[in-house]
């Protein structure tokens, strides 16, 4: 099992799919010659040539739209949106065109498109380059959405996304690109979309995490005075109700750990579903641990506070278990309100 960084795992996943299928192409700003601003397409131009690996002009609407058209006519484009915020200039092509083509062709046209985007805070990129923005994507029937939590899931989800016949968005927490771990490559490493993964086991709570917060939650669970199932959701649309429900049915407590602001965050969907369907099984109120409702601040210390840390996750869960009540978030304790 090779040990690799997450950006290497992504490059490897794309390369493996490109080897397997000549229809897979790669588009994006500086993905070819420069091998991607985050080196997530290393070696691709060299191996697959300029017909299949292309640097684009700065025009996300244009090249994402072209990718939709290419996908609808037989290719399997992998498009890089360098920072997820740039979807703000291109969302129409993803959500209103690509996601609806299959429906609007009566099933005659498929759009096997993969849209990769880097997300999240922690590297000092500032307010316009540090959000996670799952909410822009999640309420769109016709789209799938997966989020990598490290090299192995990045590899496995990327390959599944490229093989899928639907438009799939894969979000890559930017601050994990340099993280290393052993990665099962090849067919065995592929992770089915819609399937979650149990990252740790325990009895006191079910902690559902996504992307960058999987590590945070796992660390918190390892340190804790309590033990929990930590579930790496991996896919957000669709999400794995079976695994989450089975765990909550056992632990009786649900906690979500989210890097996004509270409002509109993905955890609300999970909490709402569990509260509806497992009402009788809950021993404590569901707890969402999130960032505050503020734009992502610059500054190392501020950014670190903005994102839930493992210590903070640990404290919040401890208090939930101790009191049976949802503890106030750190900013309320410090009397800060956005």
């Amino acid at each position: 099992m090779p040990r690799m960084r997450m950006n290497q795992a992504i490059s490897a996943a794309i390369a493996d799919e490109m080897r397997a299928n000549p229809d897979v192409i790669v588009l994006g700003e500086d993905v070819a010659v420069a091998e991607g601003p985050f080196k997530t397409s290393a070696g691709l131009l060299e191996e697959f040539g300029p017909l299949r690996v292309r640097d684009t002009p700065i025009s996300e609407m244009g090249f994402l739209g072209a990718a939709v058209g290419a996908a609808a006519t037989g290719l399997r484009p992998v498009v890089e949106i360098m920072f997820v915020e740039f979807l703000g200039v291109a969302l129409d092509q993803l959500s209103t065109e690509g996601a609806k083509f299959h429906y609007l062709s009566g099933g005659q046209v498929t759009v096997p498109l993969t849209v990769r985007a880097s997300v999240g805070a922690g590297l000092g990129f500032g307010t316009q380059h540090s959000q996670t923005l799952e909410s822009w994507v999640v309420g769109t029937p016709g789209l799938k959405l997966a989020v990598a939590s490290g090299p192995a899931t990045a590899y496995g989800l990327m390959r599944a996304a490229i093989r899928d016949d639907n438009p799939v968005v894969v979000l890559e927490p930017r601050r994990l690109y340099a993280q290393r771990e052993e990665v099962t490559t090849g067919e065995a490493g592929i992770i089915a979309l819609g399937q979650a993964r149990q990252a740790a086991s325990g009895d006191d709570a079910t902690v559902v995490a996504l992307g960058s917060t999987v590590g945070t939650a796992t660390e918190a669970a390892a340190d804790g005075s309590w033990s929990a199932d930590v579930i790496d959701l991996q896919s957000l649309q669709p999400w794995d109700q079976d695994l989450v429900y089975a765990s909550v049915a056992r632990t009786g407590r649900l906690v979500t750990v989210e890097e996004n602001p509270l409002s509109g965050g993905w955890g609300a969907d999970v909490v709402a579903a569990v509260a509806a369907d497992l009402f009788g099984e809950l021993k404590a109120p569901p707890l969402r641990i999130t960032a505050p409702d503020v734009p992502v601040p610059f500054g190392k210390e501020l950014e670190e506070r903005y994102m839930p840390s493992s210590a903070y996750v640990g404290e919040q869960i401890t208090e939930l278990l101790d009191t049976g009540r949802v503890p106030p978030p750190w900013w309320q304790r410090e009397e800060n309100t956005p």
Partner: protein
Amino acid sequence: MNTPLERREALQQDRQVRYERMVEIRALENKVQDLFDEGLVHGTTHLCLGQEAVAVGVAAAARVTDQVTCTYRGHGVALALGLTPVQLLGEILGREAGSIGGIGGSMHLCDPEIGLMPTFAIVGAGIPVAAGAALTAQVRGTDDAAIAVFGDGSTNIGAFHEALNLAAIWKLPVVFVCENNQYGEYSRIDLTTPVEDIACRAESYAIGGTIVDGQDPDAVAEAVSSALDHARSGGGPTLLELKTYRYAGHSRADTAPYRPDGEFESWYEKDPIVNFGRQLLDEGVLGENGIDEVQATVNARIDAAVELVLDSAPTPVDAMFAHVLAP
């Protein structure tokens, strides 16, 4: 009734069929307006009355394996490409017989067999998508091409600019066909667009830009053909501006009160159907009673289609759950 493919082939081979198809488009659009006025059409609809030569010229020039994107004002292009009146009316009236089973309505047609990609209700959106279809041809090394058909008003939106730039730099085999019908919704083009001729915008991408008489199906077919040849031979994209005119209002109930007096009348002198009919008579392609015969054939066809569709099964409720995701 002929299949879409047969309809397309006939049109490509035969100028009389092109004439007939223009008559069909007009008759069908008028029928849609009637059905709308009778309260039988749910929602909205955008007619291409007056623009029939564009549709037919494009379809005559394109190969069946070329891909075409067009807009909500796409009934004409769809029929010209080969979509049958039943497929079209079925869609507009929400029947299973519609080209996508009635789930889309007037703005959403599609038939991959004849190169009709899903049509677009978002202004400009089909332009980069056509570039993408051309990318497929380029990557696969076929000599197919793509055509984007869009309005004059759409040339002010970012997607137009981005698509032309991308296609130019990659020399994609795509033809950008701007139907300049003088209006975007209720606004005359000069209120929103500072240039007289949209074709001039080609220079921003170092590609060819040509003004074409959009009222003449032969001129349209010729211009599109030569742009397609250029595209297929690796020369990259071309922007064609087809000057034409929208006879009806923007959509359904719009009576176009904003039109200056006499404008409609002066364009009607250039009516594509009247003029092309006259030309085919002169050439002897149409016989003495040819015009009336075509009209009668078409009317019968449309009436039969309307009857068939009105008698057919409405889209069942559970159709909304099909085709959300590909398996």
